[in-house]
C-alpha cells in the first residue's frame, strides 16, 4: 500500500507536525519528515484529529432504504470525518438477532467508507418485554457490545435491571433512550413556555430525568455500567454529575443539535425541528455545553436520523422525529464548543473519538495519533465558513435543521486505515 505524508497539520490543534501514513498505520509523527515516495498532502493551517466515532447513528437499513442505506449513511459519515459509527437497532426487522446484526455488519464492510458497529436491541422487537439474545449478538461476527432499544425507552425497571446485569458477562453496555412513556404520550415538543403558546403536546424534562435517575441507581445497585443516549436537559446533567461523583460507571452523550438549537425554533411549525428528545431551552443548551466541557457528558453522538422528504413536508403533528447530523456534527461542535472557548481541539478529539470508542469498546478507533497506531484520521479546515447546502449531502436524506445556516469548519480528508475515504472535501 502506498504512503501518504500529511505535512504541517496541527495534530489535535497543537504545533504543526508531519504525519506519515504507511499502509494501514501511522509510521511516523514529527517535524520535517522526508516525503520520499509518499503522496504529500499540504495541511498547513488544518487540524488533524483521530477519526471520529459516532455512538448513535441510524442507518435505516434494513427496512427504510428510502431514507438511508448502510452505503449512503457511511458515505455521509466519511464526509463528516467519521471512521466508525454505531448503527442503531430500530430497523425493520429490528436488529434483535445475530442474523440482523451480522447483515448490517457485513453491509458496513462492503461499503468501505466507514466501520459499522451494529448496536443490538435490548428487547425483542424493541417491545421492552423480553430480553433479546444479547449473548448471541455479542458472539456473532458483529461482536456487539452496545445494546439499545433507542427510539423507545426500556421503561420496565426489572427488564432494565436484568439487561444491565446480563451484559456484564461480556463487558457490554446498555445505552438507554430515557423517556418515561406515560409522561410523553402525545408529546410533540419540549413542555414549557413555547409549547403552552403553540398548543403542542409537551415532552417534559422530568420524563427524561426520572428515567436517568432510576437507571443510574440501578446501575450502581447491580454494579454495571450504563450509557445515557442524547441527554437534553439541565436536570439530566445534574443527575449524571451526581452519579459520577459517587464513582458509578455512568456515561452520557449529547447531540450536536441539542448543543445549538432551542425550542424557540418550533414557532415556525417547521417539522425539520421536530426531534426526539425535543429541542429544549437556552438554559438547557448552555448547561449541556458546560457539561460536555467539564466531562460530565462524555461524548458527542449525532443521533443521525434520516427521513424521506414527505415525512417532513407536512404539518408538525404528522411529521417524523429526527434530523440528519453526520455531515454537520463537527461544524456544530466547532461553533458551540471551540469558538466559545469551552473546548480545544484536543478536547474535541476526546469527546468525538477517544471516549466514544472507549464506551463502545471499539478496538482500532479513538487511538492516539502516534506511530504504530491505525491510520484512522480526520483533517479539518477550521477557517472554512460556508452555508449548509443539503443538496450536496452524501446522505440519502435532507432533513437538516441547518439548511442555509453558516457553520464553521470543513472536513477536507478522512482516512480509514490509511485509505482516503474523503479527499479535498469529496468522497474518494
Amino acid at each position, binding site marked *: 500500500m502506498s504512503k501518504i505524508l500529511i505535512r504541517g497539520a496541527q495534530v489535535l490543534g497543537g504545533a504543526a507536525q508531519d504525519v506519515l501514513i504507511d499502509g494501514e498505520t501511522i509510521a511516523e509523527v514529527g517535524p520535517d519528515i522526508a516525503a520520499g515516495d509518499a503522496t504529500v498532502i499540504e495541511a498547513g493551517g488544518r487540524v488533524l484529529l483521530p477519526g471520529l466515532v459516532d455512538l448513535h447513528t441510524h442507518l435505516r437499513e434494513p427496512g427504510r432504504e428510502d431514507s438511508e442505506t448502510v452505503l449512503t449513511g457511511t458515505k455521509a459519515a466519511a464526509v463528516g470525518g467519521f471512521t466508525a459509527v454505531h448503527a442503531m437497532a430500530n430497523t425493520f426487522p429490528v436488529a434483535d438477532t445475530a442474523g440482523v446484526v451480522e447483515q448490517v455488519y457485513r453491509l458496513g464492510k462492503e461499503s468501505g467508507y466507514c466501520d459499522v458497529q451494529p448496536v443490538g436491541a435490548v428487547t425483542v422487537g424493541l417491545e421492552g418485554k423480553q430480553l433479546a439474545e444479547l449473548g448471541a449478538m455479542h458472539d456473532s461476527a458483529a461482536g456487539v457490545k452496545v445494546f439499545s432499544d433507542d427510539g423507545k425507552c426500556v421503561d420496565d425497571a426489572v427488564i432494565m435491571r436484568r439487561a444491565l446485569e446480563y451484559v456484564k458477562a461480556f463487558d457490554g453496555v446498555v445505552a438507554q433512550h430515557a423517556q418515561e412513556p406515560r409522561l410523553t404520550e402525545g408529546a410533540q415538543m419540549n413542555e414549557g413556555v413555547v409549547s403552552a403558546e403553540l398548543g403542542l403536546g409537551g415532552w417534559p424534562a422530568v420524563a427524561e430525568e426520572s428515567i436517568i435517575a432510576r437507571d443510574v441507581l440501578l446501575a450502581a445497585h447491580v454494579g454495571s455500567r450504563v450509557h445515557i443516549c442524547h441527554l437534553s436537559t439541565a436536570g439530566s446533567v445534574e443527575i449524571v454529575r451526581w452519579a459520577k461523583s459517587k464513582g458509578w460507571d455512568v456515561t452520557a452523550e449529547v447531540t450536536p443539535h441539542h448543543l445549538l438549537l432551542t425550542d424557540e425554533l418550533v414557532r415556525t*411549525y417547521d417539522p425539520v425541528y421536530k426531534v426526539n428528545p425535543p429541542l429544549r431551552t437556552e438554559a438547557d443548551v448552555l448547561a449541556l455545553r458546560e457539561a460536555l466541557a467539564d466531562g460530565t457528558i462524555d461524548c458527542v453522538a449525532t443521533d443521525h436520523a434520516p427521513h424521506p422528504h414527505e415525512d417532513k413536508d407536512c404539518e408538525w403533528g404528522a411529521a417524523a422525529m429526527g434530523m440528519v447530523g453526520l455531515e454537520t456534527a463537527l461544524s456544530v461542535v466547532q461553533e458551540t464548543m471551540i469558538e466559545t472557548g469551552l473546548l480545544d481541539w484536543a478536547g474535541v478529539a476526546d469527546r468525538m473519538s477517544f471516549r466514544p470508542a472507549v464506551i463502545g469498546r471499539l478496538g482500532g478507533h479513538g487511538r492516539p495519533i502516534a506511530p504504530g497506531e491505525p491510520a484512522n484520521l480526520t483533517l479539518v479546515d477550521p477557517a472554512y465558513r460556508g452555508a449548509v447546502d443539503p443538496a450536496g449531502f452524501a446522505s440519502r436524506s435532507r432533513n437538516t435543521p441547518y439548511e442555509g445556516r453558516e457553520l464553521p469548519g470543513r472536513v477536507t480528508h478522512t482516512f480509514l486505515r490509511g485509505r482516503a475515504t474523503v479527499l479535498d472535501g469529496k468522497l474518494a
Partner: protein
Amino acid sequence: MKHHLISAADLTRDDAVLILDTAEEMARVADRPIKKLPTLRGRTVVNLFFEDSTRTRISFEAAAKRLSADVINFSAKGSSVSKGESLKDTALTLEAMGADAVVIRHHASGAPYRLANSGWIDGAVVNAGDGTHEHPTQALLDAFTMRRRLVGRDRGIGRDLAGRRITIVGDVLHSRVARSNVLLLNTLGAEVTLVAPPTLVPIGVESWPCEVSYDLDSVLPKSDAVMMLRVQRERMNAAFFPTEREYSRRYGLDGDRMARMPEDSIVMHPGPMNRGMEITAEVADSDRCTAVEQVANGVSTRMAVLYLLLGGAEPAAPAPHARTEETK
C-alpha cells in the same frame, strides 16, 4: 392587516377594532330581508375541514355566501384526505382550482401556519381552529359579543375592551378558544383571568398576559364576563380530575354562582355546551347567557374577516351597506 389570519396575535389593536366595527356593519345586513352583499362576487372561498365541526363550517359558509363569494366545502371525510392524501397535495389541488381564501380547520396545531407559510398556496388562509393552538375568529366573535353587551352596540364603535374583567373557566390546556381569547382580549385592553384545576392549566402559562386562579368563587364577583369552556368528558379518564361531579362542583357555573356575579355581567360559552357539566341548564337558558348570540355574531364577524382579507379594501373603505345602495 396581515394577508392571513392564523393567530389572534396577528392582530394589532386597530386591526381588531376595525374587524369589530366592520362586523357591526355586517350585522346590519343580517337585519334586512335580503341578507346579501355583492362584495366578494367572483371570489372563491374554500372551507377545508379536516375535523368535524358543523357549527364553524356553516358559520363560515353563511358568511362567505352573504358576501356573494363562491363557496367550496372540502371535508376530510369521504375525500382523498381520508385516503392518506397529504396536507400539501390537498393545498396544491385547492391552489390549482383558484381558491382566493382557504378557511382551514385541522386537528394538528400549526397546520394553518404551515399552509400559509410553506409556499403551497397564494390565497389568504383563515384559521378556523387548529388542534389545541388557536381559533382566532372565535375570539373575535367573543370580543364582538362582549363589546356589544358591556360597552354597547353604538357606543362600542371604535372602542376596545379596556379595563373589562374577563374570566375564562375550564380546560385551558386543550383549548384553542382560550389561547386566542387571552391574546386578543389582552390586545383589546381587557384583564383576563383563567380559572381551572391546575391539571388543566398548561406548564408555561406564566408567560401569558393573564392571571391564573384555581378558585372560581373568588374570581366571579370581579368578572364582567365569564366564559365557560366545554370540558371533554374523556378528560376524566386521563386523570385530569377525579369525576365529572367533582369538576362540576368546583368549576361548574350554576345559579348560585351566577348570582354572585356583578349585575350586568354576562355568561359566555363557545358551544356546544355540556349542560350539567360546566354549566347548568338554569344558567345556559338565562338572559345573561350569550351562547346563542355568539352564534349569530359569529357570522357577522366572519363576514368582516373575509371582507377585510379578500375585499382588497383599505381600512377606511366605505361601509358595506353603502355599497348595497350602489347595486340597487
